[in-house]
């Protein structure tokens, strides 16, 4: 019998509310493992190229890994994958919280959802039993109300729920999937895909004691080791004490805090939206299933903004997206924007980036008062920003245009708006300026999901003695944060494997290697103790590369090519001021680096994994796919 996982994958067809259970072999799990590996497998196998991402034929995969739900800190993450309505390419987005482990306890390792329900429904899974329930009374509700209502309907106050808000129902392209109001599968527009299928939510409940591990004593020992190291390892201490908001001040000091739609890298109001500002409205730390770190920040406010703490609080990405990126230094307004996004089911990065784009269009008189009910929304306009969050959710007025994402909105607005429209493969840009950390430039350009900031660990940590963290990967010399040479490409490629492994296994990047508490050898020990597999990092890393290659093949099959592996205008221009003044990404350097990356990966000059690479990775079934 399998340990740590069930060997059971649920297939749901919403066209006729039917379902069946697949029971794949151990070899299947060793090959695809979890997360984006499972997602890419089902999308490549069953989704025809050219399928409309918001049509009934898109496939939504909710995937855990073979170790999800083990009681180690950070082993709680799960993936939602589909074809992205934002990019038209592969979509995967991960979230922590409690939903992933609960889905595992309920009896399944993944759910593959096809078709479109004729009316709104939600899935209810309890102890292996599956119900496809009428969502008439839930449709239209914000995420918190939907959570309460579903728990009431299924008569299970401890049910865990991943739901879409009204934004997903209206197929806003930057809509997300939220679990427990404060944990988001944020990126790539998965809320819109669920909305297009009339699927409001997935709710589940199971018994954690029924999930068996191959070597429970060893698992306990690893939990104890990991928890102790979390208390002693400074970056984990910092995550516990300050959370991701600590990055606001760090990046601002470096002159690479994305400010005003990437026009600048220094924000005067950084302290107000960073740790010192956030502490004024901090209620408590928040956490995910069995995590000893607790990096989340829960905030509360009564005036001037009424902020409900059940929706958590802003992470770094949100603080920058609605703060510096929109030129706003009012922590209350930024935290309110976060709460509204979590209520409505909007990606904070996408929504913030769209509003910053609109602000620059107003600054440049590309948009005028006439486009927005008589109001120009310039950088720094807090009320205008909050009003646009509402309008994107309801798709009213200018909001209807912005709800389609930056790329499509720029086309619709015209009048030169595309000069200020920054996306990669159609996905809005996260809150990191690659001009000061060039590994992130490669992350943005090469991620299969479009601009992604968690593709490879960020460069600066591995300068000087920091290189010791990545020596086990084969990166032996300190990393220069702003160089763009062969060593940087190698760093990117190996770092990408490392963080992609975390995604594949559903392990949080904030608890694990390269620079957080759980070292590589401990990850290996954990997989062995949980599954009982006689395995090692070599096999897990090969599965990781396999998942990367499958995602690339998916995009190639959809018509993506090297011309899509690029950045955008502003990053090729020098930062105008501050400590990183003058830094820019040279377009030719970038192109050369990308070609070298293809070479290192065993891909041809068109970015296609070679036949040899596919056979090497047991992917011969994809030999004719590109």
């Amino acid at each position, binding site marked *: 019998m399998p340990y740590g996982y069930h060997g059971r994958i649920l297939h749901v067809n919403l066209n006729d509310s039917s379902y069946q259970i697949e029971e794949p072999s151990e070899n299947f799990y060793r090959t695809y493992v979890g997360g984006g590996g499972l997602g890419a497998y089902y999308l490549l196998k069953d989704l025809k190229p050219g399928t409309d991402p918001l049509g009934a034929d898109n496939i939504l995969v909710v995937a855990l890994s073979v170790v999800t739900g083990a009681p180690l800190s950070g082993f709680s993450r799960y993936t939602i994958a589909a074809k992205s309505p934002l990019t038209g390419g592969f979509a995967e987005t991960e979230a922590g919280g409690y939903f992933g482990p609960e889905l595992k306890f309920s009896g399944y390792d993944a759910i593959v959802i096809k078709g479109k329900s004729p009316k709104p429904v939600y899935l209810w899974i309890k102890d292996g039993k599956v119900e496809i329930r009428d969502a008439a009374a839930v449709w239209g509700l914000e995420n918190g109300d939907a959570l309460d209502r579903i728990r009431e309907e299924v008569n299970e106050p401890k049910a865990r729920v991943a739901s879409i808000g009204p934004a997903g129902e209206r197929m806003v392209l930057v809509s997300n999937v939220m679990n427990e109001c404060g944990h988001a599968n944020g990126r790539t527009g998965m809320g819109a895909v669920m909305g297009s299928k009339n699927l409001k939510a997935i709710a589940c409940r199971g018994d954690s004691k029924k999930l068996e591990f191959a070597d429970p004593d060893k698992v306990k020992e690893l939990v104890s080791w990991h928890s102790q190291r979390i208390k*002693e*390892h*400074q*970056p984990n*201490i*910092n995550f516990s*004490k*300050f959370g*991701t908001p*600590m*990055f606001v*001040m*760090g*990046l601002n*000091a*470096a002159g690479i805090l994305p400010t005003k739609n990437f026009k600048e890298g220094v924000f005067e109001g950084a302290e107000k939206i960073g*740790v010192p500002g956030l502490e004024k409205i901090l209620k408590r730390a928040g956490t995910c299933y069995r995590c000893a770190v607790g990096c989340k920040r829960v905030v509360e406010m009564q005036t001037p903004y009424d902020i409900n703490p059940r929706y958590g609080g802003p*992470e*770094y*990405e949100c603080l920058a997206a609605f703060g510096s990126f929109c030129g706003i230094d009012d922590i209350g307004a930024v935290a309110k924007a976060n709460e509204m996004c979590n209520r409505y089911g909007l990606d904070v990065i996408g929504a913030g980036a769209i509003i910053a784009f609109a602000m620059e269009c107003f600054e440049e008189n590309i948009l005028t008062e006439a486009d927005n009910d008589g109001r120009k929304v310039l950088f720094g306009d807090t009320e205008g920003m909050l009003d646009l969050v509402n309008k994107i959710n309801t798709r009213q007025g200018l909001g209807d245009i912005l709800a389609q994402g930056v790329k499509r909105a720029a086309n619709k607005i015209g009048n030169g708006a595309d000069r200020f429209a920054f996306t990669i493969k159609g996905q809005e840009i*996260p*809150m*990191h300026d690659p001009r000061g*950390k060039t590994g992130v430039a490669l992350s943005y350009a090469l991620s299969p999901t479009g601009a992604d*900031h*968690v593709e490879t*660990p*960020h*460069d*600066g*940590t591995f*300068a*000087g*003695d*920091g290189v*010791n*963290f990545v020596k086990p990967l084969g990166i032996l010399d300190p990393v220069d*944060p702003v160089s763009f040479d062969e060593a940087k490409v190698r760093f990117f490629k190996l770092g990408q494997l490392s963080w992609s492994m975390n995604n594949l296994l559903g392990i949080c*990047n*904030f608890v694990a290697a390269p*620079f957080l508490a759980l070292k590589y050898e401990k990850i290996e020990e954990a997989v062995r103790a949980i599954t009982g597999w006689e395995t090692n990092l070599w096999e897990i890393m090969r599965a990781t590369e396999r998942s990367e290659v499958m995602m690339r093949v998916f995009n190639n099959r959809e018509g993506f090519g090297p011309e899509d592996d690029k950045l955008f205008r502003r990053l090729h221009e020098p930062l105008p001021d501050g*400590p990183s003044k003058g830094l820019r990404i040279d377009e030719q350097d970038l192109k050369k680096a990308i070609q070298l990356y293809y070479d290192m990966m065993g891909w041809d000059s068109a970015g296609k994994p070679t036949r040899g690479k596919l056979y090497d990775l047991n992917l011969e079934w994809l030999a004719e796919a590109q």
Partner: protein
Amino acid sequence: MGKQIRLELQATLKRFLPAACEDYPIECGIRVRDLLEQLGIAEYEVNLVFINGVPTNLDSTLQGGEKVALYPPLGGG
């Protein structure tokens, strides 16, 4: 008793680097945390602490003769 350490401040922390960073004088037995206070660095500005290349934390004590490297938070998420 007075001793020296070799102090290495990375990235944005370089602005706090004292002139005598190669032979920075310390009181034997002080914690890295106390060193931050002397240098005027806020706790949330330091994310990584290395003593002789080994990652550790702000409560580690210094005896003199060590190389101490400090890094600011530079990632994201």
